[in-house]
Each structure stands twice: as structure tokens, then as C-alpha cells.
């Protein structure tokens, strides 16, 4: 799981063009949106697309999104669980 969290952090940096940010600067358990990284609702939707494209997991509404994007760990757990369910 820690490897997957690291992978997600690198993808978040690439997807959102966080040019000067290192993966370790992104909190694993702290809030992802509304922290000093300055990410907002559009970034969340950009990540929704990345997760669907790269992992085949859809996050189709705001309620699920708010929960899943609480932290990088919650995102990793959700993606992992959905992929297991789909047998991938």
C-alpha cells in the first residue's frame, strides 16, 4: 500500500503540474484539498479523470469524491478496493 501511495503522489504531481513539489511534501493522511498545496475542486475533477484513465476506477459524483479525496491514503484505499472488486 505504501508503494501505491507513493505512485499516486507522483501521479498527482504530474497531473496537476505541481512543478516545485516533491512526493514527500504531499501528506499521506492529512487533507489533500484545501491545504497549502492550493488544490481546489477543479483539481479534484482532474484527478477523477486520471484515476479513471490509469486505474479504470470511476468516481462519478461529488459525495463519493469528497470522501475519496479526503487524503491520499483514502484515495489509495478506495482505488485498491474498487480494483479488487472488479477483479483487476
Amino acid at each position, binding site marked *: 500500500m505504501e508503494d501505491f501511495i507513493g505512485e499516486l503522489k507522483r501521479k498527482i504531481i504530474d497531473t*496537476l*503540474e505541481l512543478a516545485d513539489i516533491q512526493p514527500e511534501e504531499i501528506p499521506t493522511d492529512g487533507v489533500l484539498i484545501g491545504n497549502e498545496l492550493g488544490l481546489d475542486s477543479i483539481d479534484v*475533477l*482532474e484527478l477523477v*479523470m486520471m484515476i*479513471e484513465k490509469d486505474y479504470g476506477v470511476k468516481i462519478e459524483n461529488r459525495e463519493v469524491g469528497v470522501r475519496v479525496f479526503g487524503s491520499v491514503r483514502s484515495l489509495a484505499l478506495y482505488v485498491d478496493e474498487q480494483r479488487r472488486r472488479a477483479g483487476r
Partner: protein
Amino acid sequence: MRGLRAFVCGAGIVNAAGIGLEKTWEALRNEKPCLKPLSLFTVSHAPALPAGEICEALPSEQTVPRTHSLALLAAREALSLSPSFPEAIVLGGTTGGISTTETLIRSGETRPERYRYHALGSVATYLACELKCRGPVISVSTACSSGTAALKIALEMIRRGQARIVLAGGADALSRLTYYGFHSLQLIDPAGARPFDLHRGGLTVAEGAAFLLLAGAEEPPDGALAELVGSGLTCDAYHPAAPHPEGAGAGAAMRIALSDAGMTAKEIDYINLHGTGTVDNDRAEARAIRDLFADPPPLSSVKGIFGHALGAAGAIEAVVSVLCIARGFVPANVGCTVLDTGLGLRPLPRGKSGKIGAVLSNSFGFGGNNAALIVADPSRPSGNAERARVMQFDLLGTACLTGAGLTDATLEKFRRGGELGGRFDLATLGGDLFGGSLRRLRRLPRITLILARAAQKAAGMADAAGLPGGIFFGTGWGPLTETNDFLKQLFASAEQFTSPTDFIGSVHNAPASQAAIRLKATGPNVTATGGDYSFEQALFSAALLTKEGDDPVLVIGADEHHDILSPRLDPASTAGDGADGGAAFILRPRAASTGLRMVPAFLSYVPENQDAIPPLIEALGGPERICNQFAAVFAGIPASAHPRGESYIAAFLQRTGFTGMVYDYRGTTGEFSGASAVAAALAVDAVSRGVLPTHPSGVGKEPLGGKGILLLGLGEFVTAIGVMR
């Protein structure tokens, strides 16, 4: 002199209900949604989301894009009872020919002639050509408030004596860009729009066109259906896509509209809500209405019936408002079954007949662009106000950006007679602009923000929040990088994936809304687009929408060069070296300006083979006045407008006897739509220094003798701007 009132003497509409006013009327009375799964193009997911699509065959769709075709249908209906041609056209929209462009790009088409109707501005010029209008033509793109903003500009044209018969409205067709774009924002309700419903899940994308034919008169003419009595435009300056949570800008737009109409909230008999059905819009709008109306009148959104036709929506709802007044009926808020009582408003569950004296219609869009319009019974007594003037501008600050660099670098090179073309590497300007927070912004918004900040600094108002008040932005092509990236990803993924960032960034008004957010400019935020005359259209819009005593405004003209799209879309760009950039000005509106100033003097669409020069000379006060006021002419003749432009300048010189210098500036600036804004900045520099710099193309280091410089645009439009001191 008394100002003229703007009476509605004709109306035309096409939308999901069908073609023509009576189809819309039936749909309003039927109280049923006209929404069904999209069938206009095949989509990648099943089932297709609901859309407000027009299912009838469109007459001219074989030769022009769908938006153009819809616009012409509605315009002809609006003009059907009029004996005369419109003297001016103001059109709001967001899509232009994009639906055709999408198909062409997907098929790998590269021939520019196939893209000739891509431009947003081409819808209005197509109408002008078909409807024999030769006069001011302005295209405005303020996202989903475009149609309403266009009506406000038309209202001011009439009030300020610029035209007596104006055709104004909006047009947008369904496209992949908007369908997938709103889908990527998770803003489409799979059940169809349910405005003010507790379970509302977003809007329904739709298409349509609507026009009002406005006639300027002191008293209501026979057959007048309604009167436009007031309008307010504001900007949230808050977020590129989400509304201000408390509806601050929306409330301000409604207040300004009331004050513009000389009315109180109590005089409004019905509010036509923006009511898109998104969670955020309906909440912000409800809040703004509750703040303004102690006891709100009957209100409803018609987007549950027709869907949200984006740039056309404001015009469609203006036509609905006219019908409310002319036929004494207010429509139901269709789509809402479980009212969201938390919003504190009760939209009409059923339509209602009865006399309606005044309607307030709201339209809000991306970029926090808010517009409110008030339509009233034409027989309502009205004290004609003093006629307002078209503004001139004191020049408070200037900035420009060309291939040579930012303002000083460009001006130094210009003074030495150097060329300014090419594209400047924006990264070399330093990353500290606006705290380095330029993430997600591509080339055009960056150019715009650099110019906005530099002009603000030049005016000595850097970091003074709240100044300037309004922003007027002219762009020929909008954000091309974002448009290209969005479509590229869409087609590369077999229409599976699109970027919400690119979608929000692709709208023409995105750069101006970014500037508003960072400058906290909450006044009108208007993006005008008309190819090579976009800066001129923005400046004229500013002159029509401001009055003496208003805060200074920021007027910007800018475009980006894009290696793939520019050669296809802009016929002039293939003649150059891929130049881009633009210029920005901080301007104080004045009824009569005397110092260093910029004076918008003439703007007219000119059909092929028409002599445009006599009205231009007349507008400038005649040959003698032209020769006395101006020492030089800066002529803007796009490469695509040869030899027409040369024949215009020859006619101008012959008819005026003007013997000063004529400088064809596109040889210096390069070929791009923002070139006229750059030329204006060069003219400001020359006039403020009192000399014209050395230049190989014939401009000597010549004292101006206290005279000014006349900027002429010569081609599909003829335009004139004076720079004087």
C-alpha cells in the same frame, strides 16, 4: 438631448421546443421538458445524457456550422415584421463554429478554407452579410451570460445614439466541447435539469438562438412588444467556474439593473431565474434574490423545459420575458418535484396568467460573469433620461507584449525601427507574477495576466485592490492551447477522457476572468471577439458600458499563436512568423477627454465591394478636422484583407487629402489578431513623446507637431481609434 428608449419590435427564437416563437410559447404552456438523450452526435458512453437538442432540419446547415444556421433562423424571425435592415448587430455566444471544427480536426483536415466559420465572431458577420447590416457589429463572449451582455451593449447603443435599429441576442449549438466539458465537471444531471429541486444534479446542455429587434424611439412605436429598461453586468472575481457562494456578484448585477431602469425591487412582477439546476448556482442565486427582495415576486427557471443553451440562454430568456409581458403569462419552474426548501424560495409549480409590468431575467456564467436584464411593458410611463455619451478615455497606463518582450523592450526596439514579430518566451519574465500561482494556465491567460499587471503598474495602481473596476478583453481566437489540448485528448481517447481544466480554460472569457480574480475587478467583465477587430470591439464595448465618474477600466487586446490551430483558423497568420502578444490600457472614462487620450471613433462591418470610407470620414469630423488632428495614420491591414485594405487606404487619402505619414504596422508587429492593440500601445508611446521613431518602412523620426495618431483597421471591418494629447 433626451436619450432614446429601446423598444422590442420583433423577436425570434429557436430552441429545444422547435423553430419559432409559437413553439416556445406552446412549450411554456405545456409545462413539459423538451429534453431527451442527445442524438446529434454519437457519444462514447451509454445512455447518452439528456440534452436540449433541436430536431428539425436546419435550412443552411450544409453550408455553415450549426450555430450560424440557428442564428440566422432566429434573426430572420425577429426581423420578419421589420421593413428595414438592422443598423447594428450584437451577438453573444460561446461556441461559434466549434461543432464543425471538431469534425474537421478529427478527420485531420488542415485546409484553412474549411475552417472559415470557426471563429465566434464569424456568426455575427455571417448574419451581417446575410441581413445586409453595415454598421457596428460586436460579438461578446462572457460564457453563459453572453446573450444578456449582448442585449446590454445593444441597449447602450440605442441610448447613446449609435444606432436606431439593433438586432441583438445569442446563439450556441450543441458541441462535443460543451457536452463532454460539462460532463467532465460532473455538472450534467442524468435525469435532466431540475432547478431548485432538493435532488438536483446539474444542468442539461442545450442549443438555440434568440434575437430581439430593438428600435430606438422617444415613445413606444406601434406594435412594440416590450421595452428593455435596464441591465447590470458584474464579475464575481472569485473562481473560474464556480459562483460566489453568497451570490455577491449576482446580487450586485440585479441591483445595478434596477438602478439602471430607475426601478425598485417592488416593481418587478416576475423573476426569470438563471436556475441551471446545479447545486451551486441555484444556492447562490437564491441567496442573492433573498438579500435583494424582502418578499420575492413569482419566479421560475425555464431551463427545466429548454435546457441550458449557454451563450444563447440569456437571449432565449429575454424572449421568454418579452412573451410574459406581451401575453400576460409567467411560466412554471418545470423539473422541480421535491422543492429544496433550504433555498428559501418557492418557484412557481404551475404557470400563471395575469398582467406583467416588468420582468427581471438573470444570467450567470463561468468566470463569475453576471448579467441581469429588466424587460418592461412598453406603455409603462418612463421619464426619458438625458442622453448618455459614448465615452472617450484618459490614458492612465499602458503595457504591451510582443516578440521583442514586455513594454520597455518592445518600445525600445520600436523606437530604433526594429521588428517586433515572433513569440516571446514568457518564462523569462519571472515566475513571481501573482505569487507564481499560474499553474494550469497556458499561453493566452498568461499573456493576459502579464499585460494586466504591467498596465496596472504603469498606471501607478499596482496592488490597489478594486481598481480597475471593469475589464474589457478582445481576443480573436481565445485560448487556442486549451482548445487544442481538450479536443486532442478527447479524440485520442476515443471520446473517453477530457480535462476539466482545459474545458474551463478554453472559453474565450477565461483569461479576462483570471485577470478579474487577481485584480479583484468586480465591475463589468466583457470579452469581445471579432477576428482582427477584437481589440476595437472591446474598446467600443467599454465606451458604451461606462460613464463619466466610473472607476478606470482595463482594456486588453491579446492573442496567442498556436502551431497547429493558428494556420488553420487565422488566414492572416500563415503570412507571418507566428507572432503573438497584445497590449493593455488602464483608461478613465470621460465624456470629453483632453489630455493623453484614446478615442474610439468608428466601428463598422463592411460587406465586400462596399465603399466604407465616406462614413468613416464623416465619423471623424470631415477631412479638415482629420488633417488638423492627426500627423500620422497607423494602418492595420491583415494579410488576409489584401487588396481590399489597400484600396480603402487609397480612398481615405484621396478623399481627405491627408499628407501625413501612413504606417502599415503589421509589417512591424507581425500578423496576429492582437496586432491592433500593440499598434495602439506604439501610438501611445509616440504621441506621448511627440515624435515618430525611425523606421525602414518610411516612418521617419518626425515630430508630430502636437498632433495625434489615427489607428485605422481596414478589411472586413473598418475601424478608427484616435490617440491624442
